[in-house]
């Protein structure tokens, strides 16, 4: 009985920490994105609120909350609000299967820094990821307006294509690890002394493309396409409801998918890897904190890379996007699965 209450308390603390991290960091990333975009275009970006505009997300939040809340005539009020929940909740739920570090002991209790170590973790990630389609389709439909509808159709088309591709892309690392649990995938990589990126570069590239498509980032941002569709399916939303969509789609989903990529391809919390030989840890002086720092560092670098791509590339047409998905990416991932199946016994040993 005693251990039940302790488990409950630990789970609650984990939940609070993860929610705080997800939403807080998500809001803060708006500032990071604006800074990166600005410096690539040789502007300073937000500079006024706080040191180098550091408090800008708070100012933006206040502004959004005090804005007038508009609702389109003849819109569907229930679906309109349901879409917000459907966008926010699954994106945050994905965090429950992200392992932040190895098991550690606190006051005699063993704590795993993962909310729920389910044995189908990766499946859960993609199940929640697919639910984003509903949010966007409902948002477009309930707004009773042309632009959101077109945008949601486009996004649904892109998402359906890339959900297939991303699932086949992660099949490679899954075969090598032999498990679906995110925590165990990292442990396997440490046991096998191998980041899966070394054997799965094709899968990684395809995964990155699919991440860009799921996040609605350039070069796959057809659902926004500022020049054509104003802001896509968020046109009819106002105030904080408008703010939540990009927050979820660009930042919360961005962190989760980067974190999952780190888990699958870069060995989670493990330090730098020499394939089949071992690990080199330049951050050894941090002691027990080092794995957590490595995990955050890798995720941040990957997210930074996505930002960098966003502010570099132009946009593809919708037909080019789906063509790439079905005609290039899907055959590539299938070939990759065959290749992985052939070399897997070498890794398993």
């Amino acid at each position, binding site marked *: 009985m005693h251990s039940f209450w302790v488990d409950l308390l630990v789970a609650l603390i984990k939940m609070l920490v993860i929610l705080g991290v997800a939403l807080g960091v998500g809001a803060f990333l708006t500032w990071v994105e604006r800074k990166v975009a600005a*410096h690539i275009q040789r502007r300073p970006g937000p500079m006024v609120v706080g040191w180098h505009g550091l408090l800008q997300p708070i100012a933006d939040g206040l502004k959004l909350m005090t804005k007038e809340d508009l609702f389109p005539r003849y819109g569907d009020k229930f679906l309109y609000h349901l879409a917000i929940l459907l966008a926010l909740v699954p994106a945050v739920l994905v965090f429950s299967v992200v392992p932040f570090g190895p098991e550690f002991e606190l006051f005699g209790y063993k704590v795993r820094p993962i909310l729920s170590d389910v044995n189908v973790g990766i499946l859960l990630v993609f199940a929640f990821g697919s639910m984003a389609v509903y949010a966007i389709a409902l948002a477009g439909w309930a707004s009773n307006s042309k632009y959101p509808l077109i945008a949601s159709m486009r996004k649904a088309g892109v998402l359906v294509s890339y959900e297939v591709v991303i699932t086949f892309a992660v099949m490679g690392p899954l075969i090598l690890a032999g498990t679906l649990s995110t925590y165990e995938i990292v442990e396997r990589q440490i046991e096998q002394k191998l980041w899966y990126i070394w054997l799965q570069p094709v899968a990684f590239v395809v995964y990155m493309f699919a991440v860009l498509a799921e996040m609605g980032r350039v070069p796959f941002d057809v659902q926004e396409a500022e020049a054509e569709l104003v802001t896509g399916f968020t046109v009819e939303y106002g105030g904080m409801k408008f703010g939540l969509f990009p927050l979820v789609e660009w930042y919360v989903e961005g962190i989760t998918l980067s974190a999952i990529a780190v888990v699958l391809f870069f060995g989670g919390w493990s330090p730098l890897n020499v394939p089949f030989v071992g690990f080199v840890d330049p951050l050894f002086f941090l002691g027990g904190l080092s794995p957590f720092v490595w995990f955050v560092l890798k995720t941040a670098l990957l997210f930074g890379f996505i930002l960098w791509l966003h502010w570099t590339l132009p946009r593809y047409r919708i037909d080019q996007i789906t063509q790439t998905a079905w005609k290039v990416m899907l055959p590539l991932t299938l070939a990759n699965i065959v290749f992985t199946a052939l070399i897997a016994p070498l890794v398993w040993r």
Partner: protein
Amino acid sequence: MIKKLRVKPLSLLEKVFFLDFLRGLRVTIKNAFKPTITTHYPYQRLTPPKRFRGFFGHKVVDGTEPQPAFYEWVNRYNIKVEYGKSRCVVCMRCKRACPVPQLFEIEGKKLPDGKRVVSVFNMNLLLCTYCGFCVDACPVDCLYQTDLHETASYSRKDAVLTLEVLERIGREWQRRREREPDLIWPPEEERLKLWGENGLKLPETQRGK
């Protein structure tokens, strides 16, 4: 006519390794670490060049009027010249040169001693295109365009410049920038930095032949 451009298609190597992506990424990362080149507007402001076509002003009589043009016009219209007041001689040339003449409201009045003076000079800048034709037309160098460009106002009435406001702007302009050399080109060393030395030597022209 349609100009056809032939773009070299990407080679297989470029397609497989995303070389064109990498080229773009190199450009953006290079720019990301260069210093910024913008002006932080409300805190830093640029001074426009002297020939900037901004808000209008009336230069006042201060002894630097263009001579003999000024006295010719003054004598022709029998204008009363007063130190520190507008140079305007109510010739209406600005209004005639203007593409939107109704933005000017100009009236003169006759003083008891028989001399004339400008009494009303309103410019409705909501209609103005800032083309500067009126400034070119002014024969006594009175109407002038200054470097004031932050001209937003809370009401339509504030966008109408009256004679008093025009004189105030003109006086301030004369105090601040009247003596500055009128540069069409930037100074020589700046120009060389921008465009480099002109290496072309043309044969000298022969005058009067």
